[in-house]
């Protein structure tokens, strides 16, 4: 088989620029998960006592449940357009390593849906009673956590690619896989809020993110190929 005309890094960057440009034409789509996250974190103080000192205890849970659910919502965006108009098939057939291209797509997806969460989460945490000193720890935790969640979620999205809009199945598939991220992320957040060093859970989160980054491309390529048939 002849080597493709474009070298791999250039091809990946081209794909990423294209995805970004397309997504930025419809900013509402990308902002929806963010809005959802804010709504969820607002619901917690409304459902509980608005006293900040008590909310502080719930803040890790509220942040991470919100992050998890909004990641789930955001997954709809990942393969929707390209899956429908056949661009995804073209990517599979174009001769470049499919796994790398999918990783590039997932990276853009995280930039559009995960990164806003990373920026907003510390503010939401403060609104839930977290001290300003906790922002660094929370930022790191949400950064690593959203990276891992994007990748894990992408695998689920690939597997359910061709199914009729069955969002609940996607949730059922992903949530058990996402639980370790939830556990370590919430723990890191809680430690940061309490002012204690959060290194241990952060390292574990990082390990999860690295593991996801290593395995997800293979799983993604396999899943999407199967889904495209």
């Amino acid at each position, binding site marked *: 088989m002849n080597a493709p005309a474009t070298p791999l890094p250039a091809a990946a960057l081209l794909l990423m620029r294209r995805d970004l440009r397309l997504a930025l034409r419809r900013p509402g789509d990308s902002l929806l998960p963010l809005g959802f996250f804010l709504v969820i974190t607002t619901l917690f103080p409304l459902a509980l006592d608005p006293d900040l000192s008590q909310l502080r205890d719930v803040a890790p849970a509220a942040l991470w449940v919100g992050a998890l659910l909004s990641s789930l919502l955001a997954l709809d965006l990942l393969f929707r357009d390209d899956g429908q108009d056949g661009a995804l098939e073209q990517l599979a057939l174009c001769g470049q390593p499919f796994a790398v291209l999918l990783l590039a797509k997932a990276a853009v997806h995280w930039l559009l849906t995960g990164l806003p969460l990373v920026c907003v989460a510390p503010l939401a945490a403060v609104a839930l009673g977290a001290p300003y000193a906790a922002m660094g720890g929370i930022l790191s935790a949400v950064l690593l956590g959203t990276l891992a969640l994007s990748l894990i979620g992408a695998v689920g999205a690939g597997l*359910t690619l061709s199914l009729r809009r069955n969002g609940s199945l996607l949730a059922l598939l992903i949530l058990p896989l996402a639980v370790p991220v939830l556990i370590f992320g919430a723990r890191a957040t809680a430690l940061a809020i309490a002012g204690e060093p959060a290194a241990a859970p952060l390292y*574990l989160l990082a390990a999860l993110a690295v593991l996801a980054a290593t395995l997800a491309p293979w799983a993604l390529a*396999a899943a999407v190929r199967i889904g495209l048939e």
Partner: protein
Amino acid sequence: MAWVWFHKFGSPPHFYRIAGRLTPWLAWPALLLGLAGLYGGLVLAPADYQQGDGFRILYVHVPSAWLSLMVYVVMALSAAVGLIWRMNVAHAVAASCAPIGASFTALALVTGMLWGRPMWGTYWEWDPRLTSELLLLFLYLGYIGLRNSIDEVSRADRASAVLAIVGVVNVPIIHYSVIWWNSLHQAPSVMKFGKPTMPASMLVPLLLMWLAFTLLFGALLLIRARGQVLRRERAAHWIREALA
């Protein structure tokens, strides 16, 4: 030589026939060992000094929990074999594992709850074992859900194989992260068992039950897998003979 055997076993007509012949050799010993284990566990074994006769739930809870994990591993391994070597028989085995594994996971959970109620005072505890067992149930249900939602058998096989493999990588991660999480929130009441110092009269029935459940799984697997192999089979020649 082993490779020849591997490919022979992977051939649907051979598998169908051999599995059919092998099943009674697993089923009847399972029954006998189970009866022996029941007698040993319910009648012969002395009551535990801490938990009294309540500990006897062990004899169904532990083998169920063991099955729930072992079956998942078998499912993931056979799914991987099916995916890599494109063997229908392997996919058939993986598909057969799921309902068996899910039901024993649920059983492990319920017997765990029934054991927990007298020991911890509550039906549910976010104990690491119960919690990771619950997550394992969700993994099974997700696998079954994915299979059911894809109509074409070959695609369902391969998609659920990817899911099973991703899941099996995650099982130890879930297990350890839940243990870690729980150790931070440990409630003062820890269930003690004196496990390493279990006397033979308690241990032997447990081993018998464990063996019985494992053989039972083998028999159930072979029965289901034969049906699954038939569903995937296109060539007619051996089926008419086999089913005549």
